[in-house]
């Protein structure tokens, strides 16, 4: 250490500590943003090679997703279910689990909400809606919780099991809405009976988007608090790093896995609840919407940080909202958005290799770590 550096360290240790922490934070923001830009650049090259204008594409995405009040409304209503669907991936990820079958908990959560409404149709909204939400969360939580239980107690690979269970869940939904739970009046599209008006969820005043958006954002904030500010979140992170070490520390790894996966499934179940109570008005095949799979993308892009899920979900919501406009104006297939999402997904994952490689982000360069 030179004299100058030594005197600086003595003079302002706290400022340097702050700088060092800032360097680490900056890395966590700069690398994903750089990867996002790299993915966008790769996609632009892809479009240009095929003779389409990337500039026109992104101008249309801007107009279709974020340009007007109407497009914002469209974007936010697509983002609402994605917030909760992404939590279904991000929460188990804290424990090192890759759960990709949230779609199953979404459709069964929606089915549970629709079936509960058949029983509590007499109840006022203040009683009936919470009961429906609870049923959806319970079923979704049990579904993904079972994945966690199988992982911990039977050693079953959670990624494959959750996905297989998503296919089983979709078959269950189809079977039940075409059979025992079917409203005889639903002819073309088999559904549970339509919800009475008092069991429908309305829009947030002045926003034009249903209340699922507010609940989703709140859930993301609460999930962040759970992970970053509570001992359960801390314990989960240790268990995610090294199960053996966590067990030696006396941490209840089995209970943590069960709790986090069940909570994740409850979030996905809520997606189904809002889809039924706020969007479709009954449980039917429309619940199979792919939100569970979009949630995987969002959780990974947000690097499983619940707070980062909020902007990423809005971004993906806007991208998907603009799909129709891009399709009409540029005569591109609707899968164009999927290609862009895939390229950005790959780029973000490749960015993982860059952490710690840039000198300017090293905390020791800026003072004490």
């Amino acid at each position, binding site marked *: 250490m030179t004299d100058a550096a030594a005197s600086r360290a003595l003079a302002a240790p706290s400022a340097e500590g702050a700088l060092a922490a800032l360097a680490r934070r900056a890395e966590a923001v700069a690398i994903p943003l750089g990867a996002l830009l790299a993915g966008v650049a790769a996609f632009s090259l892809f479009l240009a090679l095929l003779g389409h204008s990337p500039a026109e594409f992104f101008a249309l995405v801007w107009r279709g997703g974020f340009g007007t009040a109407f497009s914002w409304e469209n974007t936010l209503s697509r983002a609402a279910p994605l917030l909760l669907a992404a939590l279904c991936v991000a929460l188990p990820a804290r424990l090192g689990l890759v759960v990709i079958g949230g779609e199953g908990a979404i459709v069964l959560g929606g089915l549970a909400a629709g079936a509960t409404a058949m029983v509590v149709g007499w109840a006022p909204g203040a009683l009936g809606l919470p009961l429906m939400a609870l049923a959806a969360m319970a079923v979704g939580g049990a579904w993904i919780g079972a994945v966690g239980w*199988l992982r911990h107690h039977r050693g079953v690979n959670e990624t494959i099991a959750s996905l297989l269970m998503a296919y*089983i869940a979709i*078959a269950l939904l189809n*079977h039940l809405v075409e059979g025992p739970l079917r409203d005889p009046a639903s002819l073309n599209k088999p559904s549970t009976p339509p919800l009475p008006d008092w069991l429908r969820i309305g829009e947030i005043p002045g926003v034009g988007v249903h209340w699922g958006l507010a609940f989703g954002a709140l859930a993301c904030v609460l999930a962040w608090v759970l992970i970053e500010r509570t001992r359960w979140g801390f314990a989960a992170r240790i268990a995610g790093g090294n199960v053996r070490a966590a067990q030696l520390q006396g941490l209840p790894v089995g209970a943590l896995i069960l709790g986090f996966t069940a909570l994740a499934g409850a979030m996905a179940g809520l997606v189904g609840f809002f889809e039924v109570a706020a969007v479709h008005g009954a449980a039917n095949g429309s619940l199979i919407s792919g939100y569970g799979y979009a949630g995987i993308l969002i959780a990974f892009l947000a690097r499983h940080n619940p707070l980062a899920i909020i902007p990423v979900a809005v971004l993906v919501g806007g991208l998907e909202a603009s799909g129709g406009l891009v399709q009409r104006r540029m005569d591109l297939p609707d899968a164009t958005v*999927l290609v862009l999402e895939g*390229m950005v997904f*790959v780029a973000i994952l490749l960015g993982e290799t860059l952490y710690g490689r840039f000198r300017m982000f090293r905390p020791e360069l800026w003072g004490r770590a």
Partner: protein
Amino acid sequence: MSETDLGLWGVPLAMLAGAIRVSTPFLFVSLGECLTERSGRINLGLEGTLVFGAMAGYAIAYETGSPWLGVLAAAVCGAGFGLAHGAMCSLARVNDIAIGIALMLLGMGLAFFFGKPYVQPVAPDLPSIPFGFWSDIPQLRAALDVNALFLVGVALALAMAWMFRATRIGLVIRATGDGAEAARALGVDPVRVRTLATAAGGALAGVGGAYLSLYYPGSWNEGISSGQGLMAVALVIFARWKPVNCLWAALLFGGAGALGPALQSVGVTGGYYLFYAAPYVLTLGLLIAASSPSRALAGAPAALGFNR
């Protein structure tokens, strides 16, 4: 030819026919995944590779008029995806499971993007060999109409088992799967072995996709695959990473997948969707039975981290 009334005998017969027909993509994808996992990597992206292979095979078969050129194109594209997966996973701290999920999404996106103009046109089918020529019963003849690609798959399973057991390449792949150190002791670069094994596995998955679009169901659309690529990954675990077991497992899955349509053909229509879910339930059940929390999975390549 008129249908002969076989009564309930039609169910096992239709399941046998279905087992052979439906199992071929499972067989190719699981052999590909088996090869990749034996080298110590997991490629979850084979679902995307399968869908892209289905599209590429169909498009090339349509443009050239030759279904076999389509199969070749699907294999080349699959190898490309495998190579990409292998190369990316060679970077430090890049997770093979996550990259697999991302490539699954990208592969499907690219397949739907380039496949849009090919949803309408009709491409030539792959030929099949009528082993049932001696029978007068049309259902039996249909059941024994075996596609050439299935036979290629059977031969491949046997050849791969022999390769693992008796050849230097097989030894190198097995050693790499046991760990990077073992590979280096043999004088080979583990990263290179894994990348090549992933590329070869991708090529096989691509061929599996071409079977879907060029034989059964025999057309290209966005719903061509219903998770076969992912089920094949589970199937490899159940098959204990042995190629010949992959063949039996693929036939079992094919039979389960044919249960719903077979029952429907004899007039059982109730619970159609539940029978449709049979392969998934079977896969999950076998996965649970094959897994174990305490002891290491028998036959699992050590480098896979299945025993963490």
